[in-house]
């Protein structure tokens, strides 16, 4: 056969198809997928490593669920999300720097770090870089009083942490206690928590003692306890992180301080609290952003109980509220992406501002400052080593045990 230029071209084309054709099929498939990258700078080392890891798990769980279940498309292509993680070593300056690094790589959609100090530093950078951030780890009201428009917090504000426990005690404790002493770490978040709690306690008719402050992250709160010992308060309410929370319970026993109840923020809902303190943790009240009895559901995680069981199967430990709030932040971002059908930070910012959804995390809706003031906190109590929801009554798993300190 005489080879003409047209025949040669056909042979070359056929050869190319034979060689590359098989690989072309998945390539075409991959071309039907659009991957949207989210940046997450979280503390994987340093003093917040524990909470940072829980936050990372929550984000990862969200990524896996969304990529497995999503049918949403963007520009006719199937949407996938990819979360890029960076360790900020629990330091606010690095947490902020990491966002600028993301920005340099064109990553405009951000999931926050853990801790109010970290998120406070990040919020300013997000504004500067015109990124959009959903916050799962910084609840201090001070972050949202600066006029920022690009940070949205799925959690109830810091001022609700102690307030929820004060309300629960006022509503459920029989006989009703009279005096309530406030002890607090001296960081911004804890002070906001304390101010909110004291205001609520005064309004509900309790005699308020304190506040007594101690250095943030200290393992010695004996001075603050000694100062209130003579007042013999009925309730000691601690605005604390994990280490101070454990120290408060242990040192109160050492010093012979026996109120009718201990109530603490942040520490009791962490699984290590009960395992670290053993019997001393029994019946301590705690405020939590989430529990597995919270009402509401959506398409990715279903109900809170579904989230809890599937998370346990995936990670081998019970979901804490730190896990849930991280997944909820990621969920809010995903829903905004689906609403706008784009990865444009400006459009997603607008969609987040208008978001209103009932989810496994409760209602997610943001007020004009970017805070989720529409979701109530949950009060838990350690009962027989388990974290049990006791307030609000509508989602309580058991009655509050009161009084309990002998």
């Amino acid at each position, binding site marked *: 056969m005489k080879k003409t230029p047209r025949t040669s071209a056909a042979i070359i084309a056929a050869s190319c198809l034979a060689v590359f054709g098989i690989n072309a099929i998945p390539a075409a498939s991959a071309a039907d997928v659009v991957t949207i990258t989210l940046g997450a700078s979280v503390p994987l080392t340093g003093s917040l*490593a524990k909470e940072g890891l829980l936050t990372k798990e929550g984000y990862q769980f969200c990524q896996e669920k969304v990529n497995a279940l999503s049918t949403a498309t963007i520009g006719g292509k199937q949407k996938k999300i990819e979360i890029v993680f960076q360790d900020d070593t629990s330091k606010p300056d690095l947490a902020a720097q990491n966002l600028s690094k993301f920005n340099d790589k064109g990553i405009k959609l951000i999931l926050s770090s853990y801790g109010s100090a970290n998120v406070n530093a990040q919020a300013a950078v997000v504004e500067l870089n015109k990124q959009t951030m959903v916050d799962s780890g910084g609840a201090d009201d001070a972050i949202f009083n600066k006029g920022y428009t690009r940070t949205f917090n799925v959690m109830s504000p810091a001022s609700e942490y102690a307030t929820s426990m004060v309300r629960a005690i006022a509503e459920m404790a029989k006989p009703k206690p009279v005096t309530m002493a406030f002890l607090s770490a001296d960081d911004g978040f804890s002070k906001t928590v304390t101010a909110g709690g004291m205001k609520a306690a005064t309004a509900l008719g309790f005699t308020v003692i304190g506040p007594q402050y*101690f250095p943030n992250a200290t393992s010695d709160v004996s001075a603050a306890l000694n100062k209130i010992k003579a007042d013999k308060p009925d309730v000691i309410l601690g605005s604390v992180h994990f280490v101070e929370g454990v120290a408060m319970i242990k040192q109160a*026993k*050492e010093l012979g301080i026996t109120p009718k109840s201990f109530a603490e923020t942040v520490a009791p809902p962490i699984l290590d609290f009960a395992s670290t303190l053993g019997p001393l943790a029994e019946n301590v009240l705690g405020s939590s952003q989430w529990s597995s009895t919270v009402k509401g559901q959506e398409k990715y995680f279903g109900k809170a109980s579904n989230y809890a069981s599937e998370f346990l199967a995936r990670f081998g430990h019970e979901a804490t509220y730190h896990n849930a709030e991280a997944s909820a932040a990621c969920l809010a971002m995903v829903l905004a992406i689906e609403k706008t059908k784009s990865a444009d930070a400006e459009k997603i910012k607008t969609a987040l501002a208008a978001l209103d959804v009932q989810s496994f995390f409760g209602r997610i809706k943001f007020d004009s400052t970017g805070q989720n003031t529409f979701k109530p906190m949950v009060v838990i109590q350690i009962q027989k080593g388990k974290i049990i929801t006791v307030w609000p009554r509508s989602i309580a798993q058991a009655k509050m045990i009161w009084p309990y300190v002998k």
Partner: protein
Amino acid sequence: MDTFLQVTAYGLLQGGLLALVAVGFSLVWGIMNIVNLSHGAFVILGAYIAWEIQGWLGLDPFLGMFISAAVLFCVGYIFQRFLINLIVNGPVFITLLLTFGINMILIQGMNLFFTADFRSIQTSYGSNSFEVGNIRIPLVRLLAFLLAIVITFALVAFVKHTRTGISIMATGMDRGAARLMGIRARHVYALTFGISAALAGMAGTMIATIETFDPSKAGKFTLMAFVVAVLGGLGNMYGALVGGLLMGLVQGWAGQYLSGTWVNAIAFLVLIIVLVFRPNGLVGKAFYAARVEI
């Protein structure tokens, strides 16, 4: 008055814990002129070892601390003999860098191996206390305080009355002369570092019994040991004890009579004041600054 006595008693006991953490750090700095920035990591490693021993064998921490000390002695000896000795003649900045590097590796290693979960050794008597008059004395803190005193006096007796101890002191004073006397300086240095690590292991066990720990606490204990060693002064085995007790008292009184926020500021203010009037620390000896380094 009762409140003052309570705060004073608690401050002293807390000071004993600080002294326990600092005594090994002070020993290495005083003898080898090495500021061991990985000391806090050794304390935390000791806490994990005691915690694991209790988990595996159910051994009480007051027995487990000897195993923890033995393991850390070996770790410390090996680190000094095969690593730090390589640069022991170099500028102090190099030893700082090396021990900082060891610190980072140990912390990250513990993060990976033990996770960042908060831990604590639980005992049936962990938060027990007893009353003396109207003052509550926490049992485990008292035992840790007594341990700090026993260790300090034992260390003094060791360096004064044993051949090994005397060779450690001799090497610290004049390494060249010590070598001429037949002392193997490298072995003596490794021995000293091993003892320091063992003491860190005991301190870590007490920390784990009294409070919570996780790898991120290492930096706090290194800083604490540094401040207490400087306050008490180097070159005197009682320095860490004196510095620790003073720091514990200052922190207790500051917390009681000022806002809690001022505790750290007042503690460091006291450090500055002491150094202004006694640059070698409360009981430090100046001759260590003029020792011969060969």
